[in-house]
């Protein structure tokens, strides 16, 4: 389907799908009043995409490169994904050729700038067989309005991608993001996702295990405060067996923030020998927050290893006391423990400078 046809189908899909409502389980207890989609197609799009490549890879603005729309089709049953598929104008395309190992991190920065604007940054990532790369993607900027982003990832046979992505939008942004990765035989994605900004944020992070020997590691960190609302949906879809997915999402909530995590593990009938792990851990810093977490298992195979778990906890008084006996004041001790809670996610970032940048964002947000 050419791009114009995709856009037309996506627009139809967008119009057909209902507006989100608090009656939907996925939005329950969220305040959606700030969400206004009237004449959204007429609002100015203001997003600036900057690219920082590495030798031997293709990194260019997204126009109509293939296979756009194959991971996230125009009739994706997700109102905001359909909206972005219909209206997007800016984006990035990354292709790492077969067997090539990118020797430094590749960077894509999508900056949302306008006031009362919209942004639909779209990213297409293809790692050909045996390719390896580290990609750091940031969604940032002072813009306010609706921001809906799409990211499609294709890891071909034996490819390896270390993908660090974080969203650090301004408080006026309403962000709807869908990221979906296809992982072929013996390929591996090592994924770290940071969710920090926006007043209303929906983050969908999905991996589809298409080939035996494929691995997905998905680690997420969310820090929300000041009435931020963050809905997270993760999906680990094992189409074939002898594949592994390991997911950990950790959130810190305070000051009337709300999170709603729903995680699906789907294992198809003959996907024997699947390993699927899912865990959602929440650190609640005061009593004003709302925290919901729902694991959902759709499992048709009988030979697999699968675990899932969710916790909602507070800071540990003994740990606080221990740190204070060494001279750390109460606030510092608390902040140290909050950052400690997220450290297992940070520790997944393999590039020191990127890890530090990520840590710095968390640090600033925690200090706030």
């Amino acid at each position, binding site marked *: 389907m050419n791009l114009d046809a995709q856009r037309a189908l996506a627009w139809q899909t967008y119009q057909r799908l209902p507006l989100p409502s608090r009656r939907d389980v996925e939005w329950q207890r969220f305040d959606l009043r700030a969400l206004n989609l009237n004449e959204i197609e007429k609002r100015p799009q203001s997003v600036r995409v900057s690219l920082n490549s590495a030798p031997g890879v293709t990194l260019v603005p997204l126009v109509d490169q293939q296979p756009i729309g194959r991971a996230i089709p125009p009739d994706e049953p997700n109102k905001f994904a359909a909206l972005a598929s219909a209206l997007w104008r800016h984006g990035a395309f990354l292709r790492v050729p077969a067997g090539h190992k990118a020797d430094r991190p590749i960077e894509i920065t999508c900056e949302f700038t306008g006031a009362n604007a919209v942004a639909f940054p779209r990213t297409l990532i293809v790692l050909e067989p045996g390719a390896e790369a580290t990609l750091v993607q940031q969604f940032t900027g002072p813009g306010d309005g609706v921001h809906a982003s799409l990211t499609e990832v294709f890891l071909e046979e034996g490819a390896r991608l270390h993908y660090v992505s974080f969203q650090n939008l301004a408080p006026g942004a309403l962000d709807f993001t869908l990221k979906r990765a296809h992982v072929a035989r013996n390929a591996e994605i090592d994924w770290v996702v940071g969710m920090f900004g926006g007043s209303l944020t929906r983050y969908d992070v999905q991996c589809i295990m298409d080939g035996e020997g494929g691995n997905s590691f998905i680690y997420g960190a969310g820090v929300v405060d000041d009435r931020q609302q963050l809905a997270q949906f993760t999906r680990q879809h094992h189409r074939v067996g002898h594949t592994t997915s390991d997911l950990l999402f950790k959130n810190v909530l305070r000051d009337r923030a709300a999170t709603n995590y729903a995680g699906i593990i789907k294992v198809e009938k003959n996907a024997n020998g699947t390993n699927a792990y899912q865990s959602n851990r929440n650190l609640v810093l005061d009593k004003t927050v709302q925290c919901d977490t729902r694991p959902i298992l759709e499992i048709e195979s009988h030979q697999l290893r699968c675990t899932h778990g969710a916790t909602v906890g507070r800071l540990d*008084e003994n*740990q606080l006391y221990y740190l204070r*006996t060494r*001279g750390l*004041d109460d606030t510092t001790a608390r902040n140290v423990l909050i950052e400690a809670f997220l450290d297992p996610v940070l520790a997944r970032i393999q590039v020191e400078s990127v890890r530090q940048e990520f840590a710095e964002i968390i640090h600033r947000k925690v200090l706030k």
Partner: protein
Amino acid sequence: MNETFEIVDLHARIEEREILRGLNLTIRKGEVHAIMGPNGSGKSTLANAIMGNPKYEVTAGEIRLKGENILNLPTEERARKGLFLAFQYPCEVPGVRTANFLKLACNARAGKELDTMDFYDKLQEKMKVLDIEEKFVRRYLNEGFSGGEKKRNEILQMLMLEPEFAVLDETDSGLDIDALKIVCEGVNKLRGPDIGILIITHYERMLRYITPDYVHILVEGRLVRSGGPELAAHLEQFGYDWITKKQ
């Protein structure tokens, strides 16, 4: 200047139960005191009351550091003024790397941001004293440490923070013979006119390496007897029966 640490008629309780019932003790800088006492007699309660653990309520008495009553100070202020407790059961803090934590603690104690290179030089030196491997301080604080490693880490923190008065709560338990010797040598290096030390122990063993100036016996929340190092030897031989009967 008044270089003493004084505990005056201290009463403390936990969950409505009175544990310390009028405890008096004065430690001058340069001195090493030891407290011995049966399980549950209140030794760790004393240590925690000194540091201001919010779980323990002091109902009467005073704790004076160089003349100043510190009972109203929060735990961290006490630490910054030079009090230190090596815990009987050090807490595990996953996610916090030992070296990073030590840096924060040393900054807090110094009241300023220390130079990173100077800090690491000092850390290396103290690790050498305690025969601690480099990788150890890159791990999460106490997480998965063996009992003995945790105790060694407590003493590393003490050497780094250079307290004016330190309480060692059963630092010897969990240490193997070689480790005990190393740790005691570390403590002895710190020993001197600038520090007062209180060692809580069940065994004379540790006191053979660190000879105390005074030994006290704590029974049911009070110091019931004080003496020199010979008291520890006597206890080892006769047990607490001898004291409680005599009372």
